[in-house]
């Protein structure tokens, strides 16, 4: 058993070593670091102010209260933050393939996926994560839900699953770079921006849009369903239990696409 886990432990260790090197290179410029953190916080405050202004006029959006919508926002920001802080390298995949830099990763005895995700660090993610958790905390403090150990555990599972879904979506779509020979493929950005739709209750959308963000690109499991569970909204809580499975499924698909793409890789200059 211990033997079989060794490659996993080694992978995780190397991932943090690689990421650590990137962090050092960014922390060398302290002013830039502060500016990045600050910018992420300002963006979130702008979003918060927008929702707050709307709720000054209306009590709810299709039955969803101010703090529930804030929690949805916060989940989008936290998961985005996790993506930036720990997996920013996926955005570079198209460029790595296009320029042939991906060669380097194939000759090293470390999983190429680990090398790709640790290729960059986005410190703005830290600002997103901290503000996001603050907003969720405020949301929970303003709800009437009774908390038990099981519920807290489920909250942790849901947030982790939500983050996994977004990272998987990024990785899977970034792998399009193996086929689309363009340093900045539009596919990942396109899917990433769909997150805009997940900031509001899905009940406001038409059936087609709902199908898109529940089934095709499961953004609803990042924000909508987890929020329903956190606030104990019975009508939508049950699908929330599917979130971990959706996360595993997305990760499986993303890694499969990545592996397929890697077989398709033929370096530059051909």
């Amino acid at each position, binding site marked *: 058993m211990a033997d079989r886990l060794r490659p996993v432990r080694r992978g995780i260790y190397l991932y943090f070593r690689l990421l650590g090197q990137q962090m050092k290179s960014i922390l060398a410029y302290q*002013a830039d670091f502060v500016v*990045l953190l600050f*910018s992420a916080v*300002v963006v979130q405050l702008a979003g918060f102010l927008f929702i707050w202004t709307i709720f*000054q006029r209306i009590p709810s959006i299709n039955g969803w209260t101010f703090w529930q919508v804030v929690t949805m926002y916060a989940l989008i920001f936290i998961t985005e933050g996790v993506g930036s802080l720990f997996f920013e390298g996926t955005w570079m995949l198209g460029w790595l393939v296009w320029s042939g830099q991906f060669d380097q990763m194939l000759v090293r005895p470390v999983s190429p996926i680990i090398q790709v995700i640790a290729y960059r660090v986005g410190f703005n993610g830290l600002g997103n994560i901290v503000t996001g958790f603050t907003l969720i905390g405020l949301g929970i403090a303003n709800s009437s839900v009774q908390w038990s150990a099981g519920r807290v555990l489920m909250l942790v599972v849901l947030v982790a699953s939500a983050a996994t879904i977004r990272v998987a979506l990024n990785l899977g779509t970034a792998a399009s770079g193996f086929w689309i020979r363009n340093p900045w493929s539009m596919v990942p950005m396109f899917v990433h*921006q769909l997150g805009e*739709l997940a900031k*509001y209750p899905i009940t*406001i959308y038409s059936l087609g849009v709902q199908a898109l963000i529940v089934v095709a690109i499961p953004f609803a499991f990042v924000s909508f369903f987890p929020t329903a569970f956190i606030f104990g909204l019975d009508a939508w809580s049950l699908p929330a239990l599917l979130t971990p499975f959706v996360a595993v499924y997305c990760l499986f698909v993303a890694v499969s696409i990545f592996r397929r793409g890697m077989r398709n890789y033929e370096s530059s200059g051909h």
Partner: protein
Amino acid sequence: MRGVTKYVSFSKASLQIMLVYKSSLAVNMIGTVFYVIAMFYLWQTIFVNQPGAMGGFTWPEMKGYILVSFLLNSVMTWYDEWTMGRDIREGLVAVDLARPIDFQAKRFADAIGPIPIELFSALVVAAVVAVAFGGVALPADGTHAILFILSAVLATITKFGLVYCVSMVAFWTTGMTGISVARMAIQNIFSGALIPLVFFPGWLRSIAAVLPFQGLVSTPALTYLGKMDWPTTVLMLTVQAAWAAGLILLGRLAWRGASRAVTINGG
């Protein structure tokens, strides 16, 4: 006349550079399209449930406001703090300093070059969205339409002046991406791009009133819809023009101060 010709060629060059990076333009566009779609559904829901909560806007007017805001924000996306930051950091400004041209005018020429393409793509997207959501309010009347175009031009100049001033920060930090993102977030709130300023509570509205941002979206969009009476329209357009001129002037002063202090890589 020859003086203008050389700046026109900068604009053309800038347009050509942008055409090489078509996918970047598409990415910029995609970034806002989903946002616009979300806004349409959100306001539609609010309108259906609580028509009284629309701050005096009818649903077609609100749709018009969102799309005009989208169009204005789609212009001059190519020009941001990052480019200027890079030029200062890598010493490329030295080339411009050595040329017999006005630095700010050259940057302005660079910034407006890609506008035809940006505007065209944004208009296509706006038309599709407008049709999908059952039409939008047209300009209140001919006079308002003309004043809107004037106001939109002033908005573009204001945006240039603003970005140019903020770019001067590049003399002190290399983190221009963060600066750009923060500027856009503040701009989105106080320009009325996220939500018409009348929705704000009094204290927030008074902050917006003394900042230059309202000239970027609020003033042109309200002029388009004819939501302000004549004295207010004239006042707001004057304020907008004053900010446009003021920011250009401030940018010139800041550049004069900063360029004296500049040390290019390698002494």
